[in-house]
């Protein structure tokens, strides 16, 4: 796909001497990169390579990819769906690594005293989720498993914050969302997990890089991935500390964060064929649902050197 | 409230009006009998318009009070209609609608007749903005006259009119007043006009009533009548050569500073 736009900033800096090079990383507040950011180890590592790190915060995956598309950032992480849309739109990026599965934290929630006991009861109900998010895929899979067609529910597209209000107000009968929102809702809002992602979706993160940057600075990306791996190890072994660091950032109580940390493993997986196949399945589902207009091949945008690792 | 005709007596008791330390009216005492026609003359800026605005209830007295048939006036004087010095036609209403404005249940005919009276029947359906200065003034006059108020207040209604039209309008005002006998106050700079129409001519000077002249002439008044000319001369002299020494002094010193 199109690679005619340069990773503007970094390229500019390339020509003007090593010292000035900048790595722009897009992150979301509730992702693994925020851990790396708060540990501050990456900056130290890259300084020796003559790179400065600029962290750019995004509220949502699509917004992050928007920036990746025009070359405003070089590297970032999102959930599983945004890269599919971006590929459909022809954005110049590559997958460089996958995160660990986090299906335990993604769930279909219903109020504690709800009449909905099984997936089958979702028929005809109002279900809230963010359009084109991992939750969207999860609910499609869940309905598939229960033998309900997508037309038999009443979907309501809501971003997590709005969905929470609608859920608590009873405007929707069920809500599909991811951690730490799941944990927070479970613990604080009398919600019950109807089903989580187990057996339905692996719900991985993906690490993405600008096409040109990935080609030019293979070594830098290696360093970043390594740092992510290390920070993930720290996170996996320091749940309490992690919750304490994130709590003021996300303004979510430590209990919920602890719960979500405990049912999730941080880390990096190489882009194996299985993972790529999973991702392809998601893409095909979106084609079927007419969320993206044409079929795409995920393999095309996997960073070649890494895909076979 | 239907205005009552010809039975409104106005009494000003020690009325003063002060604008930012400038005493414009200074203890005016005056009784206007029911159905009387009064003309007010005086130098530019002496407080004639202010007096009319007080009578219409558009300003409040700073001292003293105005009694309408014995009751003190508070707020707008609903029984009065005032023709403003600056016309104040509504630019967004056609001429005829300006005349009709505020008329209750009155027939169309009345307002067309009023326009006819001021010779502007054929301009009824034009915008006021397209009229000449004198035409605007006549529309405002028609608007004031079409109401049948208890008190009619006219602030230089004929200032922008030529001699011929002016005579016609004077006759019109007198005629309508005779028919309805409302208490009327006319501010004018034309002493002849004052003598031709009014029962009494009042001169305001330094915020006070300096001169108060009853006109004892039969109506319709003939301008050629020798007594008419006498009245005019007397009043004009009083205005032009102010009797008070203090004023005389003031004027002389002021004039010294002028270039001519």
């Amino acid at each position, binding site marked *: 796909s199109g690679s005619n736009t340069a990773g503007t900033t970094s390229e500019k800096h390339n020509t003007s001497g090593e010292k000035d090079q900048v790595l722009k990383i897009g992150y979301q507040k509730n992702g693994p990169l925020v851990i790396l950011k708060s540990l501050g180890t990456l900056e130290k590592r890259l300084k020796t390579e003559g790179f400065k790190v600029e962290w750019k915060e995004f509220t949502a995956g699509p917004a992050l990819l928007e920036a990746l598309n025009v070359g405003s950032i070089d590297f970032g992480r999102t959930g599983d769906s945004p890269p599919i*849309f971006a590929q*459909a739109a022809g954005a110049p990026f590559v997958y460089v690594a996958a995160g660990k599965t986090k299906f335990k934290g993604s769930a279909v929630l219903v109020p504690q005293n709800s009449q909905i006991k099984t997936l089958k009861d979702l028929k005809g109900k109002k279900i809230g989720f963010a359009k084109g998010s991992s939750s969207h895929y999860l609910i499609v899979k869940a309905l598939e498993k229960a033998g309900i067609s997508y037309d038999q529910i009443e*979907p309501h597209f809501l971003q997590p914050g709005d969905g929470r209000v609608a859920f608590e107000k009873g405007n929707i009968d069920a809500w599909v969302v991811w951690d730490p929102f799941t944990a927070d809702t479970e613990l604080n809002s009398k919600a019950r997990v109807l089903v989580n992602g187990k057996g339905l979706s692996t719900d991985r993160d993906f690490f993405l890089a600008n096409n040109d940057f990935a080609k030019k600075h293979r070594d830098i990306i290696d360093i970043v991935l390594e740092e992510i791996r290390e920070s993930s190890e720290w996170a996996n072994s320091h749940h309490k500390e992690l919750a304490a660091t994130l709590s003021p950032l996300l303004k979510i109580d430590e209990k919920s964060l602890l719960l979500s940390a405990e049912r999730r493993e941080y880390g990096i997986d190489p882009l194996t064929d299985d993972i790529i196949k999973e991702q392809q399945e998601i893409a095909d589902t979106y084609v079927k649902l007419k969320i993206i207009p044409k079929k795409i091949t995920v393999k095309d945008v996997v960073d070649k050197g890494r895909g076979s690792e | 409230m239907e205005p009552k005709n010809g039975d409104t007596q106005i009494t000003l008791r020690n009325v003063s009006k002060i604008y930012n330390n400038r005493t414009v009216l200074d203890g005016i005492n005056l009784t206007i009998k029911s159905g009387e026609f009064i003309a007010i003359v005086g130098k530019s800026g002496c407080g004639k318009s202010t007096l009319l605005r007080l009578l219409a209830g*558009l300003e409040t007295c700073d001292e003293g009070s105005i009694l309408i048939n014995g009751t003190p006036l508070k707020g707008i004087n609903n029984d009065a209609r005032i023709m403003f010095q600056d016309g104040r036609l509504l*630019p*967004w209403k056609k001429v005829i609608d300006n005349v009709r404005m*505020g008329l209750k249940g009155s027939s169309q005919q009345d307002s067309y007749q009023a326009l006819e009276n001021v010779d502007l029947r054929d301009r009824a359906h034009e915008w006021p903005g397209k009229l000449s200065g004198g035409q605007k003034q006549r529309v405002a006059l028609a608007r004031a006259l079409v109401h049948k108020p208890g008190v009619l207040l006219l602030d230089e209604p004929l200032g922008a009119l030529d001699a011929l039209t002016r005579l016609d309008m004077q006759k019109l005002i007198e005629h309508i007043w005779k028919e309805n006998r409302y208490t009327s106050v006319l501010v004018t700079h034309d002493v002849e006009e004052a003598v031709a129409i009014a029962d009494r001519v009042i001169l305001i000077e330094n915020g006070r009533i300096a001169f108060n002249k009853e006109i004892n002439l039969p109506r319709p008044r003939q301008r050629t009548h020798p007594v008419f000319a006498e009245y005019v001369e007397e009043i004009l002299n009083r205005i032009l050569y102010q009797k008070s020494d203090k004023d005389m002094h003031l004027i002389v010193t002021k004039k010294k500073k002028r270039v001519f």
Partner: protein
Amino acid sequence: MGNRSRNRPIDLLIPWAIPFLLLICWQLFASLGAIPERILPAPLDVFQAAIELSKTGELKDHISISLGRAVIGFLIGGSIGFVLGLFNGVSKISELLFDTSIQMLRTIPHLALIPLVILWFGIDETSKIFIVALGVLFPVYFNTYHGIKSVDKGLIEMGKAYGLKGFSLFWTIIFPGALSSILVGFRFSLGVMWMTLIVAETISAHSGIGYMAMNAREFMQMDVIVLAIVLYALFGKLSDIIARLIEGKWLQWNS
């Protein structure tokens, strides 16, 4: 302004010169490959997208649903804004009581209000219409209020002296005097009406051009985004033409 110039056919065309020129340049640059299609699609591509969306009837649905929301919201918000502006313009007490509160509410972005709107009105049509109404309310309020405040005091005085009170005073003098300003508010709010729809249609919407735009943004369909922008622009012009027609009719005396 006014009718004289509007009759000359050239005057009807000139205003479109700049949009048209821009369009041509844009197409030219795109055809020459100076603007990558992925980032900013060429006008013809946008046109293509429009045709495709029209074929399926999708575009018509989006527009008609948005139009419904827009009009209802406009009517509600416009009426409230007008009435508030009127009362605060006419009555000192009302002004003292309400003006500060309205000035405070005005600055609150709709995006920040969404959680509260969902809380109060749920996720259905009501909340969408509420947001449009809220957006429309302020410009109408503001210009009505200001228009009434700046009516020639001399004319109001004259009206009172001629026995006009309450409604007849309002209808004869205050309203016509404020009308030109009120119509400015009306014109402005017609634009705001379309603008707020996009926020409104982020609340669990399945259709509407705001939804179309935000959906396209999420899926990075630049051609649809640009199409939405073009649609908004055309709606803007349309609203403006309507507003000007009304102005032309009501403000004849001023021409």
